[in-house]
């Protein structure tokens, strides 16, 4: 009988929760580190035009980005002030667009390769000539789905 009596007095010991904060902090840091907001550093001025009939561009893994605009103030000395194309992190010429699209496409998963969209992030002050050249290049590599990325706003903001 004494065998049972012994246990009666001792309550079940409290679980040590001292390491819980560490676990949670570890989670927190994991999320903070793993969330990569990949955004290539812009070498150009990129003030998007406004539009209100927009559709969302979800699913980032299906989008390729092409930037265009005037070089930003710190690069004006080096590259001049005519509008240029930026692919990834460097300036490019129109003829490089096709190769860029093909290279980007090759990095995507097989099943996504036919549903890719090219997002054109073009500065509002750019002339259409450059954009037409880009579109022509895109047609050559049959990247036909494009998206003129805009910010949401009334169209009248574009006219002054």
């Amino acid at each position, binding site marked *: 009988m004494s065998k049972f009596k012994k246990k009666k007095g001792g309550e079940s010991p409290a679980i040590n929760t001292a390491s819980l904060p560490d676990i949670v902090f570890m989670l927190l840091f994991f999320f903070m580190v793993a*969330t990569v907001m990949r955004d290539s550093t812009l070498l150009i001025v990129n003030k998007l035009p406004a539009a209100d009939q927009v559709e969302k561009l979800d699913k980032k893994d299906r*989008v390729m980005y092409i930037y265009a605009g005037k070089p930003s103030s710190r690069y004006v000395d080096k590259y001049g002030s005519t509008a240029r194309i930026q692919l990834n992190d460097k300036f490019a010429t129109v003829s490089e667009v096709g190769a860029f699209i093909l290279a980007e496409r090759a990095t995507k998963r097989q099943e996504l390769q036919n549903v890719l969209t090219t997002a054109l992030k073009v500065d509002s002050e750019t*002339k*259409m000539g450059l*954009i037409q050249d880009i579109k022509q290049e895109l047609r050559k590599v049959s990247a036909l*789905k494009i*998206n003129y990325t805009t910010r949401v706003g009334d169209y009248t903001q*574009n*006219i002054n």
Partner: protein
Amino acid sequence: MAKRAAPEVNAGSMADIAFLLLIFFLVTTTIETDSGLNRKLPPMEDQVDPPIIRQKNIFTVLVSKNDQLLVEEELADIKDLRSLAVEFLDNGGGVGDEACAYCQGKRDESSSDNPDKAIISLKSDRETTYKVYIAVQNELVAAYNELRNREFLRLNPNLGLNYVEAQKKYDDPRTSEDDREELKPMLDVVKQMYPQKLSEAESSSKSS
């Protein structure tokens, strides 16, 4: 003096604080999604024999190098572009096979036969500014959306959504598969009634 033991700091609430932080970051971090106007470029291969399109079924919009707007060869203001485009698309001037039952336009003989035939041709100059071009595109898309909204509301009066809202709901990844299945035919019907036939021609002043 007796040495007093330093009291132990109660770390029990540390976990709560950390959780609070974690949840705060999870909730406030909105990964910004881009939005814009979706367009489809025409394929490169030239069609063997291009379909014959009657002049009255083409609505020409030209943005000049000085960012002026020419609609059907007449100078126009961008404020009027939407209503002009709606008028053109919704005209329904066709008779017989080409008649348009749901159009509410003027049925002018010199304008488009039906929305399926109607094509908007948008031309720009190499010197046109991008923002003006986008404004024009926006207004033309708005014209299509306006008509689609009208028909969508007429066909589905009890849904409480217009076409744009329904499309948004359809695209939302949170919408359940059942709802999506339900919305798809409704959207497709309206899309077929007013198909977006917007051609972006190459520049008007190309040297070659």
